[in-house]
């Protein structure tokens, strides 16, 4: 499940030498025409002018980015100050995504380790159990979480009935609920790549460390973690990137009030705002952030490769 790691072992076989360009052509056409081109188009749109009541005019304008970064007061005639609100939304998204990533790592690493150290058919079954939620509809999982934690939901009802709490714990429509939703949504994304890395780990290292009187935790910190680091980083990216752009969790669990980047963008296209250039600009800024994270990852990978 670790996407993006090219394995060159057998790529030098060349039964179909010379046909490479032809065989890759459909991929180029489909992804080029229906993903790369649209993203470029989105870049263009972010520099267009918003029409008064929605819709766009094909006229160059920096208004979308201006709205994002500068506050010119209620009537638009004050000297520009820095606009904090969108920065705060982005910051909140980064923060929520980072905490979700950390929580996933905290639970995901031991799980991945535990599964990878099972033997034979058991391992396969454990792995299968982790994989199922990975493929279950994200919408359905978010709905389940919403149902579970609402004020009158099963969790509160049971805790009340058991006498653990005197009144329902209010969770829905809070940052906590969004956080929980993100953690729950992307947890399997963390387990699988770490599992793949631990799988390849040679336990002889651990035994050698033990022979040299290294403790269990010292071995984990000094030997195991550096070796399985690529898997951990891959897992963190697989959790962080979709969390950053999440829409369902803030919308269904956050009451559409605890805005994240995803809800901000959606509002520009589906909500009252109807401000396409601004939505395109926000999406562009999100994409740039993700590309920075991925570049960082690629460089890390290359360093790892050189070692």
């Amino acid at each position, binding site marked *: 499940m670790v996407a993006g790691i090219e394995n060159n072992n057998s790529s030098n076989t060349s039964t179909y030498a010379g046909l490479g360009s032809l065989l890759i052509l459909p991929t180029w056409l489909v992804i080029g025409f229906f993903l790369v081109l649209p993203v470029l188009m989105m870049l263009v749109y972010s520099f267009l002018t918003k029409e*008064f009541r929605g*819709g766009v005019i094909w006229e160059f304008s920096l208004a979308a980015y201006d709205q994002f970064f500068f506050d010119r007061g*209620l009537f638009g005639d004050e000297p520009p100050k820095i606009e904090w609100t*969108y920065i705060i939304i982005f910051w909140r998204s980064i923060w929520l995504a980072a905490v979700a990533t950390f929580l996933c790592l905290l639970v995901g690493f031991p799980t991945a380790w535990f599964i990878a150290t099972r033997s034979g058919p058991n391992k396969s079954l454990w792995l299968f159990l982790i994989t199922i939620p990975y493929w279950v509809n994200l919408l359905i999982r978010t709905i389940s979480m919403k149902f579970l934690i*609402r004020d*009158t939901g099963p969790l509160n009802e049971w805790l009340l009935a058991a006498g653990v709490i005197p009144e329902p714990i*209010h969770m829905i429509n809070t940052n906590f609920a969004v956080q929980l939703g993100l953690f729950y949504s992307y947890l399997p994304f963390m387990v699988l790549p770490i599992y793949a890395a631990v799988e390849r780990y040679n336990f002889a290292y651990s035994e050698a460390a033990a022979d040299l009187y290294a403790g269990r935790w010292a071995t984990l910190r000094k030997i195991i973690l550096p070796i399985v680091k690529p898997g951990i980083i891959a897992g963190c990216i697989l959790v962080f990137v979709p969390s950053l752009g999440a829409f369902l969790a803030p919308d269904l669990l956050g009451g559409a009030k605890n805005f994240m980047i995803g809800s901000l963008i959606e*509002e520009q296209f589906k*909500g*009252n705002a109807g401000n396409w250039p601004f939505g395109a600009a926000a999406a562009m800024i999100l994409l740039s952030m993700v590309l920075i994270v991925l570049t960082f990852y690629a460089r890390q990978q290359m360093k790892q490769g050189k070692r």
Partner: protein
Amino acid sequence: MKRSRIIGMSALALMLAAGVAHAEGKLSIYHWFEYMPQELLDKFAKEYDVEVTMDTFDSNEALLASLKAGKMGSYDVAIPGDYMVEIMTGEGMLDTFEPSELSNFGNIAPQWVDVPFDRGRKHSIPYQWGSTSFAVNRDVYKGDINTLAIIFEPPEALRGKINVLDSQGEVLALASMYLGIPQCTSDRNQLRALNDLLQNAKPHWASFGSDIAKDVLVSGDAAAGMIWNGFAAKAREEGANIEYAFPKEGFVVWMDNVVLLKDAPNRDNALKFMNFLLEPENVAAVTNYAQYTAGVTGVEPYLEAAVTDAPELNPPADQKGEFIQACPQEVQTVYDKIWTDLKK
């Protein structure tokens, strides 16, 4: 290669089949959510042998934004509220029809024929009308609720438990009424006061949402919520111990209308549908489902008593509602800014 060619061809066939389903006898409706009973659509589809599809929106502004963003030409009819009919007419988004094209035109209740937002009904027919204010859970708060302070300066017991409609027009109109300032004011101090009121109220609100407005009251996620009268009646029927308020500062009155959209792909079916909805029996079915009030005469025999007697539909005689106004551009620009600042 034979097998993959078969697979390829069946894929192509499926793609074509998916695209081809464009036959005659279609009608595409853009409607408010949870408003039109499915049975009524089925009845129309059967009676006129028309395939009906319906998409939903959850605020007048969302309807406008979506149509402006390229959905014009995909729908035949839409159901905007009063001020939005005026805006859409101004934007040239509506087609015109002659009263003679609708045999049931005469069924329109006299007071709804010559309305300010569509003089003489050239683009629209009346559908349902109602009011917008809010409802409060009486288990949580037992004090006086007939004031907009419940939403904008809420008492301790309701803070953090309020849902607000995700609808620019209604929220700003109600806030203006609470402040006692005219709608669409261009006075800067009044606009600032409006902005401050909303910004100060926001921390007390739990969520923004129109489509969730009934559910949050029924499920208990919210203890008070801005809501439409019929939707509040439905929430009450579903078991929420709520009371719908007619605040002393005023409340919003609205009328939803069926409009004929410009570039409608199926203009004839659209007119048939509009005529269908002027039939008392049919529009009464909408009233019985959504619990608003029809703008057509002769519906009374078809109405259920629970609907006609609902307290939400019978405001006290001394209370008055106000229609939302369509603001001029310079005010609307500030309104948009207030709204964006509020939502983010």
